[in-house]
């Protein structure tokens, strides 16, 4: 019997963090899963007719509506009396989640659908050629937030999607990273054991968009976590229940691995701005080993 849920042979780039994460997620959810996918890299590289990497039922509709389509799939399964046995996964990139798909996602969470929404965050619109999204980090160079003589790149910090999801009062919100594969699977399995809307955001480095060599994907993912720039956290019913503790490394260690930050590497003022983001995360979530999180008191 073929136990694969997501087959190799698709056309993702070498070192694609998203593709690795998809396999880990679907291995954790298992065969009794229906996948609803927003438009983006993933759908393009995995389902080019007449081939498909998915060996679970899969539907792609549009860029912004996976959360709504998944709501309909869930409602239909409830009507059929089959929801208890089947996981419904909505998945999208960062643009499809935090920008164009945010309204549909908010509706799905507010209505309480029993759906796990997975955001694969590679921090820009990679499928269309590395344009800036609401989850592009501060000062990153993208094709629509380019560095230039009058610009340091992206002018805004990342939209706090996990906090936005948490504010909906849903039972489970988690942040994971391709740097910690077992952690992804643990969180996905936990999410599937909880009824109601779940949101997991997975940091998935993109060699092409971030300008690094494909073999560094896991290492760069780890560095984002270890610098405090991408805190791995879990909220259950609005309460912070777990964080991955770190001995924070300076953010330069992360920034220097990627071409998208090359223009600020010798600019202390700009690096300081990014270090402040990490420091705020470290304090807010209590990331430093032997430290209590401010977020749990909030």
């Amino acid at each position, binding site marked *: 019997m073929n136990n694969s849920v997501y087959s190799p042979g698709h056309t993702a780039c070498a070192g694609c963090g998203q593709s690795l994460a998809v396999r880990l997620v679907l291995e954790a959810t298992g065969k009794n899963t229906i996948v609803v996918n927003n438009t983006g890299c993933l759908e393009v590289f995995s389902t080019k007719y007449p081939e498909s990497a998915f060996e679970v039922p899969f539907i792609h509709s549009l860029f912004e509506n996976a959360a709504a389509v998944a709501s309909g*799939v869930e409602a239909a399964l409830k*009507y059929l009396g089959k929801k208890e046995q089947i996981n419904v996964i909505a998945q999208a990139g960062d643009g499809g989640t935090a920008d164009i798909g945010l309204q549909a996602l908010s509706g799905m969470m507010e209505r309480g659908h029993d759906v796990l929404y997975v955001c694969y965050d590679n921090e820009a619109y990679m499928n269309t050629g590395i344009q800036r999204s609401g989850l592009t980090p501060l000062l990153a160079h993208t094709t629509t937030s380019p560095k230039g003589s009058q610009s340091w790149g992206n002018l805004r910090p990342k939209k706090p999607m996990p906090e936005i999801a948490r504010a909906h009062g849903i039972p489970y919100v988690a942040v994971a990273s391709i740097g910690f594969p077992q952690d992804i699977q643990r969180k996905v399995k936990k999410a599937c054991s909880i009824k109601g809307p779940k949101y997991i955001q997975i940091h998935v480095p993109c060699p092409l968009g971030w300008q690094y060599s494909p073999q560094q994907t896991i290492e760069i993912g780890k560095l984002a976590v270890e610098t405090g720039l991408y805190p791995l956290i879990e909220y259950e019913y609005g309460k912070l229940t777990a964080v991955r503790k770190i001995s924070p490394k300076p953010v330069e260690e992360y920034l220097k691995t990627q071409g998208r930050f090359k223009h600020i590497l010798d600019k202390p003022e700009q690096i300081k701005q990014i270090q402040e983001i990490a420091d705020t995360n470290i304090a807010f979530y209590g990331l430093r080993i032997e430290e209590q999180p401010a977020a749990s008191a909030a």
Partner: protein
Amino acid sequence: MKEFLEGSMTVAKSVALCRPGVISAYPITPQTHIVEELAQMIADGHLKAEFVNVESEHSAASVVLGAEATGVRSYTATSSQGLLLMGEVIFNIAGLRLPLVLTDANRAVSAPINIWNDHQDTISLRDSGWVQLYVENNQEAMDFHILAYRLAEDKSIMLPVMVCMDGFILTHGIEIVDVPSQEQVDKFLPAFKPLYKLDVDNPLTLGPLADPDYYMETRYAIHQTHKKVLKLLPKLTMEFAKIFGRSYDGLVEGYQLKGAEKVIVAMGSVCGTIKDVIDQMRQKGKKVGLLKITCFRPFPAQAVYEALKNVPKVAVIDRSLSLGSFAPLASEIRALFFNKTKRPKTISSFILGLGGRDITMDSIKQIFSIISKREVDNEFIDLKPELIKENYE
């Protein structure tokens, strides 16, 4: 059983008789009474279905898309801006070959914002791949929803159907309607057995990427399937007549066409007004008639040709515009007579009733009077000259 029913109640009852499993909608005037009534039926336990209250029409269409793809008969209703906001999903549903049924309470499109009736909303989505049926009265609204599900789910069709009914005029108008029994509807419309669905025991990929090697054939397939609709719909209405005792052609309806020298072509509730005018004029010996188009997509070119080929003077009423060009229905009527030897001497085009402007019996008489004298194009009837500020000559 005959009941005195508002159009929206009629649609809700019809949809409930079709036993949908998932209903999703976002409120917009004048669609609201339909979905309120369905929500109440579910709340009272008279209808077993999931009702999903969404945050936009885009999501309403997406929810029923997902439900239908999971193999459950589903339903939504909207109007005007709501249909336009759904627009992207509307095309997607047809491309995915999902046999949904949607009611559009026809309403004008903003700006300026206007909640009253014309056909601009649905006409603007005529190329989406959906079958479009325009109903004249509440009885047709009752019957064509049942027909719509049967047509959509036919294994040779698998296309969505939009039932277009005039906002307020029908949705809020009260008429006597013959409400069929559940047994009759169950006999005509069996439980939905999808050809394909999201099923963990038989995993399929729906909505893949089709590159230039594959895309064009998918569009050809929908186009060809529309031709099958033209053959199937009249057969289904014959079967419908045997069970329900009401007969329709399904594509077009001729009224007083025999020997008619002047014929109006129109869609929707205005056909009732036109029939009254024709009755009056026929009593005075005027040879006038009506060709009602029920099925606008697919366009029943052959049926229209047969009905109009010997009519000397034709007037086409459009309740929408293709701004900057010829009126939508009129251009189709003219196009089908291209290269035909038998054809009307004149085909005039009239624009009426935009944004809910009343179409009176006098408006219709005026049309018959104008085409007696000359052929006109995009002739606006009942314009108010005092409101026109610029000189467009």
